[in-house]
C-alpha cells in the first residue's frame, strides 16, 4: 500500500473522526462503509469540500479496510471541510446522521500536512473469540500452532481464487490466548492479537487462524466461526513508540 498523500489543500480544515463498526453492520464491506459515511456527512450538512476531478467526490480519506465480519471501536476518517465547524458540533451532527452501529465517537482537527491515515496507521490490536470443537480445541494448542507458524515465517493462502502469501516476521507482533466460556455446544478460545501492516500487506486475523488450524498442533480441532473486533489502531514511529490518531501533538486548536 503506497503512502497516499493527503488530498486536502492546506487551506482546508481536516477533521479527524473516530467511529465504530458494530453489531450486524460488522458485515459491511469497506466500500459499503465508505459510501455510508459519505452519505452521513451529506446528511449532517457539514461544509464538506468536493474534489475538482471528473467525478467530483467528497474529500475524505479512510483508515485501512476492516475485513468483512470484523467489528471495531477504532476506525478513522479525515474529512476536509471548507469552514471550521466546531468539532463538538460536527460530532453531534454526524452522530445524528449516521446509523447507530457506525456512530462516530470522537472528532478533532488535525494538521493538514500529516500523512494520510491508511498508510500511517500501521499497528492494530484485535480481540478474537474462536468457536469450535474437537479434542484439541484449546488455548494451549492454539499457542503452539501460532508459534509453529511464526517459525515458518510465512502463510500461503487463497483470496478468492488468487494465491497470496504474507510474511509473519514483521506483521505478527504478538498474542495471548486463553480458554473462554462455552457457548451452547461450542467451546471457545479468546485471543488477543497485535499486528503490524506495511506496504507489503496487512495480516488479517482470519487468515492467521485458518492457517493455525491447518497446523499439526491443532489436529483434531475444528474451527466453526470467529468473532473479530479491532480494538486499537495507531501509528508506530521509527523508535517503535505508538502514537494515537488523536495524540495531542497532531491536533490543531479549535477556533
Amino acid at each position, binding site marked *: 500500500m503506497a503512502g497516499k498523500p493527503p488530498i486536502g489543500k492546506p487551506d482546508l480544515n481536516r477533521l479527524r473522526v473516530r467511529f465504530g463498526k458494530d453489531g*450486524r*453492520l460488522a*458485515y*459491511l*464491506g469497506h*466500500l*459499503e462503509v465508505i*459510501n*455510508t459515511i*459519505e*452519505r*452521513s*456527512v*451529506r*446528511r449532517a*450538512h457539514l461544509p464538506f469540500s*468536493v*474534489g475538482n476531478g*471528473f*467525478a*467530483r*467526490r*467528497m474529500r475524505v480519506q479512510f483508515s485501512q479496510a476492516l475485513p*468483512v*465480519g470484523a467489528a471495531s471501536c477504532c476506525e478513522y476518517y479525515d474529512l476536509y471541510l471548507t469552514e471550521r465547524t466546531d468539532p463538538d458540533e460536527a460530532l453531534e451532527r454526524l452522530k445524528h*446522521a449516521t*446509523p447507530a*452501529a457506525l456512530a462516530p465517537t470522537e472528532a478533532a482537527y488535525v494538521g493538514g500536512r500529516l500523512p494520510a491515515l491508511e498508510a500511517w496507521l500501521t499497528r492494530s490490536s484485535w480481540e478474537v473469540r474462536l468457536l469450535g470443537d474437537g479434542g484439541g480445541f484449546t488455548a494451549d494448542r492454539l499457542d503452539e500452532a501460532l508459534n509453529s507458524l511464526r517459525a515458518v515465517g510465512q502463510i500461503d493462502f487463497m483470496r478468492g481464487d488468487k494465491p497470496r502469501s504474507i510474511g509473519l516476521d514483521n506483521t505478527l507482533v504478538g498474542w495471548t490466548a486463553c480458554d473462554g466460556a462455552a457457548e451452547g455446544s461450542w467451546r471457545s478460545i479468546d485471543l488477543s492479537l497485535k499486528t503490524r501492516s506495511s506496504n507489503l500487506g496487512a495480516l488479517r486475523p482470519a487468515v492467521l487462524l485458518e492457517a493455525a488450524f491447518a497446523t499439526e498442533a491443532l489436529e483434531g480441532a475444528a474451527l466453526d*466461526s*470467529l468473532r473479530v473486533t479491532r480494538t486499537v489502531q495507531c501509528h508506530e514511529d521509527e523508535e517503535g513508540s505508538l502514537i494515537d490518531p488523536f495524540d495531542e501533538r497532531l491536533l490543531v486548536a479549535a477556533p
Partner: protein
Amino acid sequence: MRLPRQDRFAQIEPLLGKVLHPARYLDHEWGAQEAQDGPFHVCMIYADTYEVGQPNLGIAILYNELNATEGISCERAYLPWVDMSALMRERHIPLLSLETSSPVASFDIVGFTLAHEMVASNIVETLDLAGIAIRAEERDEDDAIVIAGGPSAWNCEPLSPMFDAVLLGDGEQEIVDVARCVRDARSEGLTRKQILDRLSHIDGVYVPSLYEVVVDETSTRWGYAQPLPGTGAPRVVYKRCIPDLGATEPVAQRMVPYMGIVQDRFAIEVLRGCARGCRFCQAGMTYRPVRERPASQIIEAVSEGLSFTGYDECSLSSLSTTDHSQCEQILSELHERTRDLGVRVSIPSQRLDSFGVDMASAVSGSRKSGLTFAPEAGTQRLRDVINKNVTDEDLERAARNAFEHGWRRMKLYFMMGLPTETDEDIVAIGDAAKRVLQIGREVCGRPRKGKGGVSVSISVAVFVPKCHTPFQWVGQLSRDEVRRRQQLLLQSANDRDIKVSYHDSDVSVIEGALSKMGRAGFEVVYRAWQLGCRFDAWTDQFRYDLWLEAGRAAGYDLEQVAAESFPIEAHLPWEHTSPGVSKGFLQREWRRAIDGVTTPDCTMTSCTGCGVCQTLGVSNVIAGDRHGR
C-alpha cells in the same frame, strides 16, 4: 402453515460470514422503518436479490403508504441468493423479512411485485422458501393473503394460481384499501373465502379464484376468464388510476442501502404515463393517461430527498422525462441548487431530438460518457408501423448536436422481429449506425489511432409482443429467424467503430411464451421451478433447456407458443383485467400499423380515442404547456 411472529435474526447471523454480499441480509438501513408495531403486518417482496429489488420505486411507495396507516405495518423481503437459500434450507430457516427478521409466513399479507415476466420462477421459489403453500387453493384459513401487482400484472394468468388477489394499476391507495379490508374481515372472523369475495369488490382488485377459464370457439387455446356464477365478481376488472400525481407524496424513496444497488441514487417520479403511443410498448398503453408533477413540487422534493438520504445523485424518473412540460425549468433550477454539492442529476432516457440533447447536456456537465437514443427501427417505413414518431433527419440532427456538445460515444437501441419487418429494415439498422458514425467523424475528426475517436454501439432486443398493446395479436419471431437476422445485421454494421450487442434470444422465447399463455401456463412455471429454474433474469442462472423441458412436460412447445399469433377478433386470455385502453382502439391501431399510418401523442394534439380517460374518469394532467415546444 402460518408461523409465529418472532425475531429470528440470530439464526441468520452465523450464516453471514459464509455467503456472498452479506449486506443483502442486514436491514437497519438509513430510513428503514424499524418500528413495526402492527398489529396488522404486511410484507412486500421483490422476488430477486436485494440489490435488484431495493431500488424499485413502486415498493417504496407502498411501503410508505402502509407504514403511514394507523395500525398497519409494512416490511420488506427479497429472495436470498442461491448460496444463502441453500444454507437456510439446510438449517430449516424459512424466508425472513428484513426489518424484524420475522418469518414471511407469519405475516397477514404478503405482496409480490411483478416487475417483468422473468420473475415467475422466483415467485414460486420465494413462496416455497417462506413455507407458504404455492397454490392459493392449498392455503390454510389463517395463512397470509398473497397478493401481487406491478407493471407486469397485465397478463398475470400464468402466475394467477399462486395469488389470492392481483392489484391492477396505481397501487398507492389500492394497497391501503386491500390491507384494511383484510384486517377488518379478519377481525370480524370471516373465512378466507369470504375475505376474497370482499376483496373482489374493491376497485382494481382481481381475485383469480373467483373466475373460471373457458375455452370455446371465440377464444384462443388459452381461453378467457369469466366470473364464476354467483360470485358477483366483475366481468372486467379495470385498473385503479390516481387522477392527480401531484396530490401524492413526491419523496417516496427514503431508504439508503449499504450495498451498491442497481440504481444507487435518489429517484423521484416526475410524471406517470406516456401518450406517445409506440405500438410495441406495454407501459405506454397501461400507464395512461399522462400525469405530471408540477415543477415546484419536483424541485422541493429533490432538495428534501437529497438532504434526507445524503445521496449525491438524483434521477428524474418516468417513462419519458424529457416530455415533462417544465423539463427545462426543472433541470436549470436543480442545477442552480446543487451546483456546489457535487450532486449529479440524471434522466433515464433521451428524446430523439435536439431538445433531448440539450437536456442531456444540461445534466451531464463535463461528464459526457455516452448518450443513448432509441430509434427502435431502421427504416422510416417500419418506424411508422410502430408509431415511433422520429425521422432519419431527427436522428441525424440529434447525433450531430450531441457530437457538437462533446459526446464521443453514441448508443442506439433497436428491436428485431417487429411486425412487417423485412431484411431491408435490418440492413437499415446498420446503415443508421454508419450514418451516425460518419456524422461523428465529420464533427470530431478521425484520430490516427484507436483512442479518442467516436464510436457507436447498437443494442438490439428481440421484440416480445405484449398484451394490451396494438401488437398483442402478433406472434414472436422464431429463434432461428432471429439468429439469421442477427447475422445479417452483423454484416451490414461492418465498421470497427460500431459495436453490436444482442439480447439473448432464448430468454426472449420464454418471456414471449409467458406473455402469451393463459392460466394453464402455470403448470409450465411450476415444473420449471421444480426442475431448478431460478433467477432467470440472471444470464448465468438462466436455463433454456430446463424451461423447454418444463414446457414439454406440461404438453407445450414453448417456442411454438411464443410464435403463435391470435386472430384479431379472438377473446384473449387477459381481457378481464384492463388498463382502460379499449380493444377497439388497439384493433384500430393495429390496422393503422399495417397501413403505416401514425397516430399522434394526445398530450401534444387532441384525444386520439384510446378510451382510458372516459372509462376511468381521468384525464391528462400537464403542469405547463407541451404545445409550446
